[in-house]
């Protein structure tokens, strides 16, 4: 008789396990971050306090968290759909910017009456981002070009387009020659919730987008089709699913959602078009992480977007309170991510100790499906 470690694999961890383990990993990440703060000469407890207060401690703090969560959730929901189809849309930054450009055009240069401006901004912004994404689909379907490279390169093209516009034909008349457009008319400034700076419309839309994507993935045929495509074009082909069309629609959707996020930023936060980096703020890339952490589940995206919004918000408070180097944020984020994915393994594997008879063979792969 002897003791043996047996590693068994779980098929699908329960939601409560996911939650518990995620929280545990976050706590561990913060513990390690405490060492980092100590290294920088800041009391870890003080740092935690400031962080907590900055992310959740007041209505204001929560609003700052939510403000950042919104674009992450909108884009993340679309990316979740995309990733489930194994379509790697790395171009959310560019799609966001295209949405912002289209929205700017509607707000400043279109002949529409004021009451139609806002809806037009969102609809056309969606279309702009969607077409930008669909172009990558076309490149993949017709030209067999990997969408990773297409979407990534198109990010740069979109950024340069913004620069061209704000330095050239769209440069504002009221901005003394600086690289901005004129401010948008008041009609398209998104109304905010109370005294916070959270735009109400996009806040609601974030939830709508997540719900819609979840519904699409789990309850529709299309969702089923795209998940099959996610397993491989061969599988889709065998099942008679038009993979190319699915890929196109998926990029159309995720690009469009990124476009809406872009419209939301320019009409809710900036009220003008400015330097691309200051508009997209890396949301397009952070949303990739948000979607991955949520395991490409659109509802989970809401939680991970909230997490990242809290991280950004709390880190802001830290920046202001301690004047720490802003690069500390990257270390914190990196730690959180590492702990989250390491803890994932805990979810999928269960280690048990059991008493085994002598004769039992040592087996390298002890996989017992639950």
């Amino acid at each position, binding site marked *: 008789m002897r003791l043996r470690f047996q590693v068994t694999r779980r098929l699908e961890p329960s939601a409560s396990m996911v939650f518990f383990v995620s929280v545990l990993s976050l706590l561990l990440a913060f513990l390690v971050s405490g060492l980092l703060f100590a290294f920088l000469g800041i009391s870890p407890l003080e740092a935690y306090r400031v962080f907590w207060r*900055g992310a959740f401690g007041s209505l*204001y703090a929560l609003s700052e968290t939510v403000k950042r969560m919104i674009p992450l959730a909108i884009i993340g929901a679309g990316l979740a759909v995309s990733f489930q189809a194994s379509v790697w849309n790395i171009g959310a930054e560019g799609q966001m910017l295209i949405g912002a450009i289209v929205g700017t055009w509607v707000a400043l240069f279109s002949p529409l009456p004021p009451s139609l401006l806002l809806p037009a901004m969102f609809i056309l912004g969606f279309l702009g981002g969607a077409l930008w994404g669909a172009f990558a689909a076309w490149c993949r379907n017709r030209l067999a070009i990997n969408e990773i490279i297409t979407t990534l390169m198109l990010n740069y093209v979109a950024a340069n387009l913004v*620069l061209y516009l704000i*330095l050239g034909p769209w*440069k504002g008349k009221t901005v003394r020659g*600086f690289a901005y457009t004129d401010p948008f008319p008041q009609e398209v400034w998104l109304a905010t919730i109370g005294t916070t*700076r959270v735009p109400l419309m996009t806040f609601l839309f974030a939830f709508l987008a997540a719900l819609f994507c979840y519904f699409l993935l789990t309850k529709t045929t299309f969702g089923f089709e795209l998940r099959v495509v996610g397993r491989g074009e061969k599988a889709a082909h065998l099942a008679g699913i038009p993979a190319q069309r699915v890929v196109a629609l998926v990029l159309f959707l995720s690009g469009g959602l990124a476009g809406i996020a872009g419209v939301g930023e320019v009409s809710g936060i900036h009220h003008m078009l400015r330097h691309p980096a*200051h508009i997209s703020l890396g949301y397009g890339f952070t949303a990739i992480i948000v979607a991955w952490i949520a395991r490409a589940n659109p509802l989970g995206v809401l939680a991970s977007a909230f997490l990242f919004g809290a991280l950004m918000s709390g880190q802001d408070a830290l920046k*202001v309170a301690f004047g720490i*180097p802003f690069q500390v944020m990257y270390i914190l984020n990196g730690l959180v991510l590492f702990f989250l994915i390491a803890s994932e393994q805990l979810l999928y594997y269960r280690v048990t100790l059991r008493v085994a008879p002598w004769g039992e063979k040592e087996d390298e792969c002890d996989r017992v499906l639950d």
Partner: protein
Amino acid sequence: MKRFAVGVLLVFLLCFGFVALGNTQETKIKAGFIYVGPIGDFGWSYAHDQARRIVDDTYPWLETVYVEAVPEGEVEGVIDRLINQEGVDIVVTTSFGFMDGTFSAAQRYPDKIFFHCSGFKRAPNMATYMADFHQVYYLNGVIAGALTKTGKLGYVGAFPIPELKRHINAFALGARRVNPNAEVLVRWLQTSWYDPAGAKEAAESLIAEGVDVLAFTEDSPTVVQVAAEHGLPSFGHYSPMYKFAPNFVASGQLVHWEAIYFDFFAKVYAGLYTPKNLGNVDYWWLLREGAVELGADFGMPINPVFEDQLKSTIVNDPVYGEISVYDLVFALLKAMADPEYAFSPFTGPIRDRKGNLRVPEGVRLTMDELITMEWAAEGIVGAWPGEPE
């Protein structure tokens, strides 16, 4: 030395003012500085932070905090935190892109004072300030015009906005004063203010076109280093860049934001500036006020390595007659730093490169015309986005 003297003077004034006005202010004032870039950039944000430290160290009643790398759309959130979390009384926002955010924060916090750099919106509790280089660039141009052998000067600019256009124009005007056929070849980066790879390749491409003196606006000493690698003179930008190439940095533009900060904070402390009377407070400080300085390093207007060459280059100047370029630089410097502002680089007649008369004879450009300048002076070669017809 000069800025320290100014500081001491102001402190002295302050004590006197404190007593004289029966000051009932708090004993400490807290100011929060918001930078758009990292303070390690050795450019714009670095210079503001250096000034902050100087002012913080000099005024015992002043306490400062700073936040770096704040994206333009986030400034309001940071202002909120500075005021509510840190309890600052004065918020200093150091980038044009913060203007609208600062303005709306000024409406929301009518008891706090806001100080915005390079903008044009003001409020009873929001003042603006700027230290401009166009005079210094003119002098750099005079030096460059004398140093160049090929007659081609190079300029690497980040973004084609009026501030840079004004500086390049001043540079060109100065160069052509001593070298009427000098050309200024311009290359734009248009990626970001900090782009060392772009700056390097832009400088290299200029040198490949025959440029032999370089100036630039970009937040790193890359152009200086590239020029030095080719053995060419250059002009440092913003921070003292002499140390990066001691034999090749001929001169440069240096900024002393602390001159403005000394003045403003002292006046706030003394009660002269309150959250009610800032509506017309706009600093447009130049050589005269000590906000900018000609030099490769502090206290080094012209690099000694180039002195002999400049002293032996004689020109026939319309105003000063037969004069060495070296003496001309200092004569012009004196004239521009004169309290009566005896000389302005943008005094007419000045034509743009398309032949239009931009400044009539005997007229000086106003500050408004300076800060909205889009045209290109004669001698400038290259792309010029936004050039008027």
